């Protein structure tokens, strides 16, 4: 299993606590957590990945360095906008941080074949009658492409340009583990914070799998019919309570524990009986020093993949077999499947639920219990079709 974030239990607070002090978010619904959480009462669920694409959004006013828009891919722009939204909301900037003690941990999608669009002219001039590339001909034509074609598709562009914007020079990482990516980012950053290497980190993820190659491929694996893949990004500032209090930051929640596990069964072999996910939830609760009865909300992935949804349902039913089950919800019902951005995006949703003391009906999945806003502990579970899982437990402020 994995990382225990806090030495203290949820009843206490300590300078060593790891807390989230700001969130940034961008989806097809717009910029900001408020814009997105409002949808659960106002809008109906969208039907297709096309509708979950971020279109018509002008990123320029939201970026410190607007030139970056031309240097990176569409998905990178989403990540950078959400990251800057997060920086603004948490009150940190290149002028206020200690560069060497600020980290950046990102969950990123892999390169897409759309990143090769700069080669389209050269490739079109080089394909034979069967659509197969003639390599020798391509060798003669590729120089028509932009010199920065390779850089356009790098999966660590958000890490690079985000670090530049914030002047964050501390420890960093970039995870490409699909649905569990942003939780991996939380784990990596938490480790660096615990080791005393940094005072604060920007953590999160971004996603844009709404391309024809991904959807076409995944459709054949029964994926995405219920919750279409979406575009979007979500970032949070994670820091020690001491650092947050020193700079007078408002605390959104305390991160009690975050961990990951695997079925070890291979790709697209999620075990719907979910022993690994069940054990992960139990272990993460033990790390967080909370009981099943302490949890007020469980946020699941609800990806629409049958075996993954069954695994989540079974694990929750097993862990809460002898305790009152809390409300089980998912943001996928309005935000679509945010893949790499999921896991962080839910914190904004939870914050809104606790502020309003209610969980929107439109987010509730399956048969669940009632929401008790007095129980400030919330759990966010991520499940991937690779049989990989992550679980984060937070205490909402």
């Amino acid at each position, binding site marked *: 299993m994995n990382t225990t974030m806090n030495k203290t239990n949820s009843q206490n607070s300590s300078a060593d606590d790891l807390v989230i002090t700001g969130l940034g978010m961008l989806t097809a619904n717009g910029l900001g957590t408020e814009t997105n959480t409002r949808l659960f009462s106002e809008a109906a669920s969208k039907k297709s990945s096309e509708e979950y694409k971020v279109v018509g959004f002008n990123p320029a006013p939201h970026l410190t360095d607007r030139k970056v828009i031309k240097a990176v891919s569409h998905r990178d722009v989403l990540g950078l906008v959400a990251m800057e939204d997060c920086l603004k909301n948490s009150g940190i900037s290149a002028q206020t941080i200690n560069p060497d003690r600020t980290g950046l941990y990102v969950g990123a999608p892999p390169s897409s074949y759309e990143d090769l669009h700069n080669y389209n002219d050269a490739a*079109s001039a080089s394909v034979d009658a069967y659509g197969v590339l003639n390599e020798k001909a391509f060798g003669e034509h590729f120089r028509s*492409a932009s010199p920065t074609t390779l850089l356009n598709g*790098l*999966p660590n562009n958000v890490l690079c340009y985000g670090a530049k914007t914030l002047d964050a*020079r501390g420890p*960093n990482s970039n995870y490409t583990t699909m649905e569990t990516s942003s939780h991996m980012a939380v*784990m990596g950053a938490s480790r660096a914070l615990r080791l005393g290497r940094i005072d604060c980190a920007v953590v999160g993820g971004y996603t844009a799998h709404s391309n024809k190659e991904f959807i076409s491929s995944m459709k054949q694996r029964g994926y995405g019919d219920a919750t279409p893949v979406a575009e979007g990004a979500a970032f949070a500032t994670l820091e020690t309570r001491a650092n947050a209090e020193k700079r007078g930051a408002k605390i959104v929640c305390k991160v009690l524990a975050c961990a990951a596990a695997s079925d070890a069964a291979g790709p697209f072999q999620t075990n719907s009986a979910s022993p690994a996910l069940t054990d992960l939830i139990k272990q993460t609760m033990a790390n967080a020093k909370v009981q099943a009865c302490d949890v007020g909300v469980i946020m699941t992935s609800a990806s629409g993949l049958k075996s993954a949804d069954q695994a989540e349902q079974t694990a929750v039913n097993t862990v809460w077999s002898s305790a009152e089950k809390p409300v089980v919800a998912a943001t996928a019902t309005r935000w679509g499947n945010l893949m790499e951005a999921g896991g962080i995006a839910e914190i904004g949703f939870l914050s809104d639920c606790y502020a309003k003391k209610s969980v929107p009906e439109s987010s509730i999945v399956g048969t669940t219990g009632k929401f008790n806003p007095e129980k400030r502990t919330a759990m966010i579970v991520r499940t991937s079709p690779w049989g990989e899982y992550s679980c984060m437990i937070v205490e909402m402020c």
Partner: protein
Amino acid sequence: MGTNKKRVVITGMGAVSPAGNTMSETWNGIIEGKKNVGPVEIFDAEKFSTNFAYQVKDFKLNRQGLTDEDAKFLNRSSEFAWNAAIEAATQSKILDKGQTNPVRTAVCLGVGVGSTPLAWHHGVYMADKLEGDEFVKVHRKNFPNTLSNLVAKLLGAKGATSTIHTACASSGQALGEAYEMVANGEYEVVMTGGADSMINPFQMAGFCLLGALSSRVSDPKSASRPFDSERDGFVLGEGACMLVFEEYEHAKARGATILGEIVGYGVTESAYRITDLHPEGRGVIESMQMALSDAHIKPEEVGYINAHGTSTLLNDKIESLAISKVFDKTRTKVSSTKSTTGHLISAAGAIEFAVAMLSLKHQVYPPSTNLKVQDPGCDVTLTPGTPTPMKSNYALSNSVGFGGSNTSLIAKRV
């Protein structure tokens, strides 16, 4: 890292590289200055401005533990990684029953963007045959997390399966995070490493367009010449290297052979430009200092640095500057084994750490192959062109990636 950190030892290593198809072949190839570099054979690169690379030769996939269905998910570099993982796991004996606790075993790999048969794939893309089964057969090889997922299956590892991509720093970073996972007590065993092959038309074209590759087409064997005054760019390589990191007491209790120890990790961001190092070495300096601090050792205790040393004008000059600011050149020798392996991109950090560790084990400095005249702007003491005896207990390995991530790992002789 805090004083309560656990000791992390290496109990297994495996490699597939242009220098050899196992770890020992790779080490011997590096020591002998073997150069598996020549015209690209994977695709027709005749018309490319750089048409040569270091390539893996005579490779045969080891199908141990691999179902036919799982094999369909492996691309060229993950096939290399599979063999390397089996070699490392076999040496470590962690495939034997009862050697590991599944929930205390994890996987953390650095994986590149390359090695899918992109040329063919793009042809399909252009022909708009995306709904076809043929497309799916290729696309399934392209998920970055599949390799760590399959390695977890091989090991029966039910802990975290993590995949990292920070370009050329990917596997250095993966090793660093694996080390921290064990040192922190989160896991007892972590399989870590990296894999990459960017020798395909689209990515090789990308490097050509950036002007990053050596264009010494008349003499590929001397093209990768880190720190040489006539270096003109790097030469692509391909391969994989996997290592078993294990908590010392766990390794001792099960009687595992300890090959070496990892004692320090540094990781920073240059926060400068995507392809360039900061002119004053910012980021690389701090990474090495962080690793030294983590290892609780002084710079003069490090006898050897396996540099990132890509053979590009900028990297070698600035990395040398950074090394000279942290280390005393009369006490620490430097080489880059990319002169023998080429640049393994996302796998570079893993294989170069393994080489650094083996140099300690054998007490031999890897040679600075291809070095003719040292660039006076690279003010470090390079190892000679032939293997020479070493007397040191510590070696450091640097990795520097596009995007600004820098890592430094310190190995200790046991």
